Every structure is written in C-alpha cells, then in structure tokens.
C-alpha cells in the first residue's frame, strides 16, 4: 500500500519533475478502488523520496460495481476481511499507470534529459505479498540488476507456530532509468502477489508485451512471470510467450494442464498418464466392449480417446465435479461434436456413491485413478453401486501403487501423490480388495501392472480388470 521511491541524484528534488508531482504538497487522486495519495517525506537536494500511498476501500471492493456478495474472481476479494488495503498488488500497478503515467511511459516535460539517464534509486514497498517466498522475490528482481533487501513478517507473534506470513517489506536498489524501475514494478508486483483484482483478458497480453519490452524476453523467470501475470490462463500464456520468445521453442504451456496439479507433476517423468490410458484402451478392446462409460472422467481425456476410436460406438463420461465436466465439454467441443458424433457421447454429473440408473447398460465401465479419492468408509457404497447395481460386463479400475512412491524423487516420504487422495494401496491391498469385490459380486478379476516395473516395488500404477462371471 506504500511505495516510496527515493533518489540521491543531485539535485534529488528533480524526482518531482520526473514523477510530475510537486514535492511541496500532498496530492490525492481518485481511483476506481479508492484513492491514491502522493507526498514527499524527504525533499532536499541530497535526498528526495516520493511516497505513493494507496487508500483501498475494502467495502467498495465488495459492494462496488459488478461485484456481488459472492462475485469477483479471487475468493479473497469477496471478503471484507481483506489484505488488499495493506499490500502492494495489482492495485499498485493501476495506481502507477494512472498517477505516475507520464513517468511510466518515459515522459518528462521539465527534465526530458533525465528520462533515459540511469539514476540511483531506492524503492521501498510496504508490504509486498510474495507467493513463492523471498527466493522467488530475489529470482525476479536480482537478474534485473537490483540489490534486494527483504524483511519478513510473522503471521502473529503470539502464535509462533503459525510461522511467517507471505508479506515482506522490500527495498530495491539500482541505478536505472526511472521508467524501467516503474515498469518492473508494474509487471512484477502483481506477479509476486499472484492475484488480480480484475478479469484477465486479451488486452492483458498487450500490456505485458508493452511493459515487458526489452527485458522480459531475457528474464530467466519469464514463463512463470507470464503465467502468473496472466493469472494462469494457459491459452493467454501460450499466446504471450509465443510472441515474446520468437524462436521455435517447445510449447511451454503443454505442461500446463489445468487439472493436472501435483499428481501429474509427480508422475509426469514416467509418461504414466499415457501408459495408463493405453493399458485401459487395450483392456477395453480385449473385452470387446462397444459401449463404454468412464466414471470419474474429470476433464475427459479418456473420453476423448474413446471417441477417437471407432471401436467404441457409444461413450459416456460421469464426474462429480461440474467444473471438471465444463472443462470436458470444452475439451471435447461438445457443441461441435453434437452435429456428427453427438449421438455417441453423453456427459453428466453424478457420483460413485449413489446408485444411478444412468450408468446402467454399458458393456464396460472404467474407473481410472478415482477410487483413491473416496473416503474408505464409502468404498462399500461404491462397490454396490457399480458391481452390485450397474453390473457392466467389464469393469476396469486403476489406482496408484503406494509402494512405488519411494521412487518419486520429489515426493516426500509418507505423502500421497495428490493431497485429495484418501488412501493409496500397496499391491497386496489392491489385490485383496479386488478379489473380495469380485467374489462378492460374481466377477472374476485379473490384476495387471501399468508403467515400468520396479523389481522390488512393482509398477507405479495397478489395474484390475473385472469380468462379470
């Protein structure tokens, strides 16, 4: 909420001309989210500092135009209890462009000769939220030639166990043209905060390109910067990076699956996702299934593969998450499909612990990396719903082999591959469960490994292929 820019250039009070703000007065500017005040704590020929103080109105944020009681993008913006009034965020970028607009675009009426000149500056931000911590802060600013001082703050000194907050009082020192300093702040403050108060659209790509001109393409963290600046909109990120890095590099956003999260990150080096899909498809072919339902289809990767295979005359996907289904609809371009393939595809919301007539009548059901998300107490309900009630001729269930977790470099011991996993089974546990289920419901089951077989720990994932007896 406070940005002070100080210089020891002589005469230091030239800062007032560079910023187009008179050191003699407190000046206030109305902004959409509150007010900005500019004043000078120091204004001597030796040292001059200009303070930009943001006065963010939290009630206005909630009740302002557009934002209903639950509206707004970032969840924290919907709250009155909000750090926005106290931190440097995308609001600061807006204030920079509106209050220091001339300086940001490199204009000075009174001191044009100083605009291009490298001057000694010291910028202090109180406070700057840094998602990614001090390390990330340094990785952002140090490659740009800044000396960085960062003072962290505890969440609550009365509760030391709560640890440090993400807020830092940060001082950046560099000899640089003022415009560059402001540009860096304009782009990197929201990147550190990693939250935007406005919807990120196409014109943000333009802004990023304009303000990143001349430095962003060379920045070692450029991918992260673009991704965060564009608030994880992978499509936009791809567009920005493609235009930023003109040579033919591999698509940086291919690694940017919306849903993939940590599990994919853990497993990716093995290409496990692809192997799993291939194994499931092969098992479906072997079973001669024509009508297949993918239970817990997520964003529809397997459904898409099934649709692309003419062997499967009818394909359905069910998931409990309406968001995942919306993504699946996008991925599968359901509306376009409707014209040609629509008859073949059904997507619907449902859950594996409620009996559901809609999942009956398929030759095969696939349950790929799903059961481990269920509360173990509800496995019995799942079992009855699928094996007892729907009773497709073939059921394919895959789930991680927890033994193999030891082989994942980045996975701390004892942790599951995904925070939402309720359990992960050993080979023996999975096999025991599979045989019990098969016996209880007149199925036979064969358990097969998926992925590279570790001589001691087995495969990373295991698959049970159940056939109705």
């Amino acid at each position, binding site marked *: 909420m406070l940005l002070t820019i100080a210089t020891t250039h002589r005469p230091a009070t030239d800062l007032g001309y560079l910023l187009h703000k008179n050191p003699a007065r407190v000046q*206030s500017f109305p902004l959409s989210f509150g007010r900005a005040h500019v004043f*000078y*704590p120091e204004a001597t020929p030796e040292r001059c500092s200009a*303070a930009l103080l943001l006065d963010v109105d939290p009630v206005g944020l909630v009740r302002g135009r557009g934002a209903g009681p639950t509206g707004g993008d970032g969840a924290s913006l919907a709250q009155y209890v909000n750090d926005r009034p106290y931190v440097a965020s995308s609001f600061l970028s807006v204030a920079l462009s509106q209050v220091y607009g001339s300086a940001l675009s490199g204009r000075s009426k009174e001191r044009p000769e100083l605009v291009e000149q490298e001057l000694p500056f010291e910028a202090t931000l109180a406070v700057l939220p840094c998602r990614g911590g001090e390390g990330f802060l340094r990785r952002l600013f140090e490659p740009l030639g800044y000396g960085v001082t960062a003072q962290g703050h505890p*969440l609550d000194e009365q509760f030391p166990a709560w640890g440090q907050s993400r*807020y830092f009082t940060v001082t950046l020192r560099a000899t640089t043209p003022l415009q560059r300093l402001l540009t860096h702040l304009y782009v990197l403050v929201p990147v550190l905060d990693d939250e935007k108060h406005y919807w990120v659209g196409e014109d943000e790509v333009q802004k990023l390109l304009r303000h990143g001109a001349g430095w962003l393409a060379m920045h070692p963290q450029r991918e992260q910067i673009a991704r965060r600046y564009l608030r994880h909109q992978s499509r936009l990120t791809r567009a920005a990076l493609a235009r930023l890095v003109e040579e033919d590099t591999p698509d940086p956003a291919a690694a940017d699956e919306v849903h993939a999260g940590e599990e994919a990150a853990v497993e990716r080096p093995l290409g496990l996702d692809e192997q799993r899909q291939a194994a499931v498809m092969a098992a479906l072919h072997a079973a001669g299934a024509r009508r297949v339902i993918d239970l817990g289809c997520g964003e529809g990767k397997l459904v898409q593969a099934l649709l692309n295979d003419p062997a499967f005359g009818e394909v359905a996907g069910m998931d409990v998450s309406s968001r995942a289904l919306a993504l699946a609809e996008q991925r599968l371009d359901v509306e376009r499909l409707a014209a040609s393939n629509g008859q073949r595809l059904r997507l619907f919301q449902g859950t594996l612990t409620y*009996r559901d007539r809609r999942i009956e009548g398929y030759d095969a059901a696939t349950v790929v990396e799903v059961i481990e998300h269920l509360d173990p107490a509800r496995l019995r309900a799942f079992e009855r719903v699928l094996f007892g009630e729907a009773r497709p001729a073939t059921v394919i269930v895959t789930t991680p082999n927890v033994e193999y977790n030891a082989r994942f470099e980045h996975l701390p011991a004892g942790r599951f591959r995904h925070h939402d996993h309720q359990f992960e089974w050993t080979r023996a546990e999975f096999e025991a469960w599979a045989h019990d289920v098969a016996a209880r419901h007149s199925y036979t089951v064969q358990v097969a490994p998926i992925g590279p077989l570790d001589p001691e720990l087995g495969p990373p994932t295991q698959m049970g292929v159940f056939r109705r007896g």
Partner: protein
Amino acid sequence: MAEPVAPDPSTGEAPRAAREPVRLTIPELSLVVLIGASSSGKSTFARRHFLPTEVLSSDACRALVSDDENSLDATGDAFEVLHAIAAKRLARGRLTVVDATNVQPEARRPLVALARAHYVQPVAIVFDLPEKLCQERSRQRPDRDFGAHVIRRQAMALRRSLRGLAGEGFRQVHVLHSPDEAGTAVVERQRLRCNRTDLGGPFDIIGDVHGCFDELVTLLQTLGYGVAMTAGENAHPGFDVQPPEGRRAVFLGDLVDRGPRSPDVLRLVMPMAAAGTALVVVGNHDDKLRRKLAGRDVQLTHGLAETLAQLEPESPAFKEQVATFIDGLTSHYVLDGGRLVVAHAGMKAEMQGRATGRVRDFALYGETTGEIDEFGLPVRLNWAADYRDKAMVVYGHTPVPAARWVNNTIDVDTGCVFGGRLTALRYPEKELVSVPAARVYYAPARPLVSTTTPAGSGADAGASETPARDPQLLDAGDVLGRHVVETRLHHSVTIREEQSAAALEVMSRFAADPRWLIYLPPTMSPGETSRQPGLLEHPAEALAYYRREGLAQVVCEEKHMGSRAVLVVCRTPDVARRRFGVEVDGDDIHGGTAAGICHTRTGRHFFEDRALERAVLTRVAAAVERAGLWGELETDWLCLDAELMPWSVKAQALLQEQYAAVGAAARAALPTALDALAQAAARSNDGADGGAAALLARYQTRLVDAERFVAAYRRYCWPVHSLADLKLAPFHLLASEGAVHVGRDHVWHMETLARLAAVDPELFLATPYKVVSLADDASMQDAIAWWEALTLRGGEGIVVKPLDVVARGRRGLLQPAIKCRGREYLRIIYGPEYTEPEQLERLRQRSLAAKRSLALREFALGMEGLHRLVEGAPLYRVHECVFGVLALESEPVDPRL
C-alpha cells in the same frame, strides 16, 4: 379379476329402442378410445361427456405441431405428441379419451399397449353410423376438403374392425349404432373397487393368517375386538366380531392353507367383510382355493391339501359361499385419501389404484424373476427397496422374522403358521401388535432367519432375493434435479436443480458417511441492523421482533465463538450398527467405547483424526451416562447441536490465510506508512500544506483498528494438543430414540445439557442464558446490559430464541434464533476498519430477507430429517432433508449476515 371385464353385451347386437338412452359404463380410470369415421360425431360426443382436458384430439395435436389441424403430413408428429400426453396422463392416473378416427387396427394397437403399460383398461366407444350421414356432415364442414373416398374407406375399415376389438385387448367395447343413440347415450364412470380412498381408518391391518384361528382370535382380542361365538349352521359355530369404536380390520389375504382351522378363519372373516367391519384383499392361496373350488386342475401343494381336507365335512353351500367370497375379493385397496395401500404381496407405486391382470398378479405373487432357488421357491425382486412413493404400503405374503419398514412399506407376515407370530399394524398409529404362534403348524421350505443388515432390510425368508440392494444405498435420483421436500413445520421446500448439483459435489467429495448425517444446522440471521451510533447489531432489534410477533418470553443464550459441531453419540458400537447401520470396531486401541460422529455444519468430519473423534464421543457418552440421561430419555443414542472451541481448532487455515494474514499485513504496512506521513507532516511545518497531518491522523486510527482486529481474533484462538484443550458447549439436545425434542422449551435444553457440564466440567461448557419477558422493560434492559457486558469483554454476543423450539407468529413460523453480535467480534466479519463512520454507514445497507427465508427453510428441513429418522424412515428420506439443507446453503446470501 373382480372388476367388470367382460366385453359389453351391446357389441354387435341389435339396436335398442331409440328412446331409451344407452348407458355406457366405463372405469373411472381408463383409456377411452373413440372409434369412428370422420364426421361421425366423436368430438361432439367427447365434448358432451368429458372434460376438455381429458380429451386428446388428433386434430388438435396436428394444430399444435403445425398450426393446421387438417395438415395430413403432420399426422406422424401429431400422434407422437398425442401418445406422449396420453402416457403422462395415465401415469398420473387421469382418465384419458383419444379422439381420432382409430379405424385401423394399427392406429389402435399403440393405444392398447399404452393402456397396458400403465395398467389401465382400454375402452372402445365405436360410432358405427351410416356412412351416408358422415358424408353429408363432412360436406357441410368448410374446413374439410378431403374427398368422399376417404370417409368411405374409413367406414369400411371400421366395419372390418368391429368383431376383432375384444381380441385386440379392449376390455369393454361400446357400440353406438345411430345418431340418436350417440346423441342420447349416458356415460357412467364406475369407481374402481380398489379405490376406497374415502375410508380414512383407523385400521388394524393383519398379516397372513393361514388358518391359524386361535392366534387370530387372540390377536383380535389384543387389538380390542370383541369376539363372541354364535350358533352357526351344521354344528359349526359362527362368530360375531365387534371392532373397537370406529376401527376396521384389514386382512392381507392368505386366510387359508397350511394352518389347522382354515374354515373357521373363513367363518370369522366372511361375516366381518359382509358387515363392513373388515376389508379383505385376495392372497395367492385364497385364489388357488377358489380355482380348485371352481373345478380347475391345480396342484394340491403348499398346504392346499390340508385346507381341502378341513373343508371336506363342510356343506356344499358353505363351499359355494367361500368360492363366491374369494371371487369377490379385490387385488388391493387404496385407502385414506391415497395415503395407505394394502395388498397381499405388495404394490408398486405405478400400479396403485389400478385394476388389470398384471396388477392382480403383482398383488398375489409380487415380482419374481422367473427363476427358482435351491429351496424350490421363486426368486423375488425386492420391489420395496426401490419404493419411493408417498403412500404407505402394508403387505404380507413373504414371511419375515420381524416386521420392518423399508421405504415406507412394511411386510407384516411374520410367519405365524411357521411358528412365528401373527402381526397387525395399527394405522395411523403405525404401531405393531403381534401374538406368538402356539406351535409350528407347518415346516417352512427354508429357515426363517434374518440374513441381511439391520435398519430396514427386506429380509425375506420364504424366498431368496436377487443380489440384495442395500436399503441404505442412496440413489442419485433421490437427490439430483429439482426436488420438493414436504416438511411438517414449513410447507414444502423446493430445492433447485443447480443447488442439488452443488450439494452433490460437496456431499460426495467432502461430507461424511450419509448414514451419520441425520441433521445439518440451519443458518441463523442477525437482527435488524441497529441505528445506534457505532453499532451494526444490538439485542433490542431481536427482542422487538419477537415481541411484535406476539411472543411473551424469549431465551437469550451466550454465543460461544468456536465452530459449529453436530454430534451423534451412540452408547456402544452395537447401537451404531443397529440404529444407524454403520459398522464400528468394538475395540478401539485408544479405548473408545462409544461410536458416532462429530461433524461440521456442512457435514464434514470435525476431526480428521478419527481416534480423536472417537475419544470425544466416548467422553460425551460417559458424561451422558453419569448425568443419567440415557435412562431418563430411554435412549442409547442422541444428537446434539453444539459449539466446539477453540475456533482455531477447525478454522486454522482460515485464521492463518485470512485473519492473521490481514493482521500481519496491516501491522507491518501501517507503521511504515505512518513513518513516511510523520516525516511529510514534519516537513509541512516548513511550509508545505496540512494534508499530511490529516492523513497521518487517519492512518493512526487505521493502525488502532488493526490492533483491535488482531485482539478480536486472538481471543478465540488457543493451541490444541489433545482432547484436554477442547471445550464443548452443547445448546440443543436435538433428538434421541423415539423423540425429536421440539416439544421441550429451550430452558429444558439448557438445563438438561448443563448437567453434562456438571459431571464433566473439563470438556463441557454450560451455556449461560437468561429468560426474558418481552412484556417487561426491566427484563429486556437486563438482557441488553448482559449483552453489553459480554461483548465488552470480547464475547461474540448472544443468540435470542423463542422460549419454544418451534414458535409461530402472525405470518407463520418464526425465526428459530436471531444472533446479536458484539462490536469487536464483527471486526472479524466486516474487516478491521468497519467501525469507521463512512464504512459503517454503507454497511448498514444490508438486506436480511433472503437470509431469514433461508433460515426458516433450513430449520424446517433439519427438523424434518430428525423426525423422519426417529420415525424409522429409510435413509433416503432422511438424507433428502440433510441434502436439502446443504443444497440451500449454496444460495448466494451475504455470508457476513
């Protein structure tokens, strides 16, 4: 088949005298198919005898789909629409008339199929009028331009059809032979014999007697019937049975076979039926006896031989009487305005109140797969497990060890003849009365043992079931889509489709096992916004609300700042299994002996650590034990609504990510800003303007606000290392076996629960409360002063409740509770600086209407679920309410209210 099924004798017979109007008798629920050439007067006839909405005309359907009722190329679409509407009407039990020419067999075939699919009788009314007349009328209609050949062809097709109509499946065929007959005919709707919705009870519904005369007499006497022996005929006594005032017996069939005294049972029941003191539905054994008596060739198995031997000495007249009696029995009865259905082997929802051969088959035998099990008995489909209708179904046929409710159905055949008991269900009391069999009269084909899980399984000892559907298994259809839940407190509550979708996700991803979720607490509204300076909320508004609504007294309870917790506490794991159908390990390594759940207001387990949860429950159960409440409430489980402290135990993430974070940011940023402003203000002494000083003052206030904010949340936080650091403040004893404690006032709840704190003050916190008289200003001032003192000390505030749990005012149900939160506490809700005048003024603009309406609907749903649980309703009926609360919570209401 008891209903009139014979084709109408008028078919093809000579025309009656013209002056005598023809009476067309049709079942009140049937599919009436008008058959006749164009212009034969069908529509006129239909208009005269049926409601406009009962008549589906092909011409009207053509117009519906094409704007032209004569458009022949719209015919296919028009009939698709017609059939679709007819199907919906028949499914809803509405008489439907199809006004189309219907002269071709292929036009009639789908209509007959439709009637069959909905278990209603297809009735044909044929307009066999002279072709010349039709041609003449057609010429006079300017809108009909098709040629004479069309009508000629139709008339020919009609005549070819006449003889075959009965064979096509029309159970009644009425033919009108002249315009005069058509013009004067009278349509009489005949009530179906199964329709006795006019009889409201009370009833005593008695299961399969199977000739167990002694047990029947004992049961009747137990039920308060006077049974006297009278002089009968042929050296046989007669029986005179006098029911208790206003009551009526209902026999579920299978009066005969296997048992020792079938003729006496008949001798007792038949006069009751004749006198109207008993209703009787037919059972498969009765029906088989009828066929035997009618001279049919039937196997003398399953106890029929015994009956025949017992009938041997009886007079032919008695046998004749028996045959007539059984022949006159109906398949099932729909009683009490449709709320009760009785049938021998049960009755699916879509068959209730209908009378066809398939309905009768179902009533006699239930639904079987056609397979035979290893005992030689038919494999049954468990229709009751899928039953979802509102009408209660009472049936017998399949002997069970004990009568149990399954989805609002109950099998009361407890195998008396096999040495079990003879059972009656008292309706509407829903009370089971039974007497034991004197001995085993007949060996069952398979042992009478319960093999399945508790709480409403359809244990079926006389036949094997298809792979048993767990009656506790929920169906997506129970909750998905738009739903209306009937509540006894507050009309019906509608759950919208998108609300269901949101709740489904939360319920299946995060919530605990639905068998444990019997209640979710309703949201609570604050009082009207206070106009007092510096305050948003104050008790005066809440008190005024209840006084305005005419209440004399309210209870003010201190509001503890923790997290909402609902506890279901079972005395032992056995209770959990028996009452809730949840298997819980008996021996817990941490010494947990009780079972149950402690969950949050959205149905998540309160503690991720199940051992800790078990420990809490065990501790609570021990306190209930010591306080003597198990015995006093005659229960072995109870459900508590409570506040669990500290707030930090559940809200750790929220505290750290939001509250502490905001405090940290403010307390780190503001001093830096103050330094800078102080420097600038100091410079202003050298000639700059006074703006810096004003800003400085403003930011100093903001820092004070931030410090107060941090102090506010800190009060509700303390580290929790074990159970010893937790505090539980129960404030509502929601339910226990047999009772939802809505009849007890809040003082009872407070005092009863205080006894837990008395025996275990380490864990429990008794909630301080005050009873306030709304007629007494001093009493109200006292409550306000109490609130001021509490909130000054940093307390969250108070909750004001009507003295009675359920209170009604001028416009119906009143808010069950209103919260009045303290000034400092509200910083956590509205932000550190909400007390600054310019913020406060804007915050006063808050609308409570949505929140209040939500609170009422959720309260009604929550209580409804508990009532249903206590009454022994199946899981889905309870879950529907709990799910509803969760679904309503997805409503976008200002979360700060």
